[in-house]
């Protein structure tokens, strides 16, 4: 589902406006690519919760390393 990826990127841009979509790598660690600290990460998840109504439990954070991980995870929750 391509549209979940689009929602994720649009949401990411709210937190990190300088992100260029074409420079994002799906398979490298997202937080270091985009320089998201724990506060940015939390705000990102809050914004995702707003756009997709998916509440990601803290226990699942460790599985969500790359953009692909996150998109795949969200697909199973929607």
């Amino acid at each position, binding site marked *: 589902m391509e549209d979940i990826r689009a929602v994720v990127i649009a949401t990411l841009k709210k937190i990190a406006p300088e992100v260029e979509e074409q420079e994002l790598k799906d398979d490298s660690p997202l937080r270091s690519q985009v*320089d998201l600290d724990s506060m940015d990460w939390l705000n990102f998840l809050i914004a995702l*919760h707003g756009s997709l109504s998916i509440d*990601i439990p803290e226990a699942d954070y460790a599985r969500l390393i790359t953009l692909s991980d996150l998109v795949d995870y969200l697909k199973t929750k929607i």
Partner: protein
Amino acid sequence: MIAFKLPSLGADMDEGTLLEWRVKPGDQVKRGDVVAVVDTTKTAVDVEIWETGTLFEILVHPGEKIPVGTVIATLLAPGEVLSPGEIPPARIAEPAATGVSQRRPVSPAARKHAEELGVNLDQVTGTGPGGAVTVEDVIKAAGGHPQDKAADMRRTIAIAMSRSKREIPHYYLSETIALGNAVAWLSKVNADRPVIERILMAALFLKAVARAAGQYPEMNGFYRDGQFSQAAAVHVGVAISLRGAALGGGLIAPALHDVAEKTPGEVMKGLSNLVQRARAGSLKSSELSDPTITVTNLGDQGVESVFGVIYPPQVALVGFGRICERPWALNGEIKLMPVVTASLAADHRVSDGHRGALFLARIRELLLRPEDL
């Protein structure tokens, strides 16, 4: 008649450019109201008023650059009535004085862009509904000044930090703190909370520093004109990096007020709100002038320890590095433990290493018992 002066915008910002008035002559204002927006080299600031009354006359208009302390408006005190002779002629001829007519809607995104690009909103032609200034208008008006803005920000930081290193005899201490209890406590608390109410470790750090600073007053206050005055409350300055690497990033450390009296959940809410407003350019003037001690948290993407530079006229800065797992001896066994290195940079004119060590140890004790924070 009350003279309303541009309040302090923090020790390193001594002037500002008026961007916008949020009130007009005749409006009732009360203590704490945001009445104007002023741009500084670092960020746009919402200027609060500390008097109650009726706005009488606006003396400084959008686009004008003024030093802190300039009288920017006059107010009538509650119940104060002017005799006709005191009313300036312009006021009678033109009841809706200048400033009001120039007030136009500006979207928050446009304001943020204008701030990042160093655009004076007053000189931007608005093409949105009702003459509103849009992001496109700002970008068009910018024509290529972002480097100037980044250079201004860098210069402002340079002035404050050079002054700090020139004047303050720093001493440094550090301590590795076991966070097993705090991590376990947080995951238990957060498991029951929806994402919007989750608490980060940073909130516990701030709370612990604030509680400890209340007990070690020589860490909490200001050194001015050769003497230290301790602050009555603990307002923790939170070092926040401003996003936008293309613009040179930057750093600002606004105050989170009365941290010691708040619950960890309240501290978290306040922190989250402060970070968002710092990045959106809507901090309040009191938040920039109030911090009594600073906390810098390099966070989980960073390094293990930080040795900070004190933000004058404050006298202490507490730094936290990345939380990482280390082998740790506990009850005769070695186990894996999440730990953080906390450091203290403090002003030797005000305190000695012995007191600094007790202060840092107190922070450690508080973090070992998160349920009591």
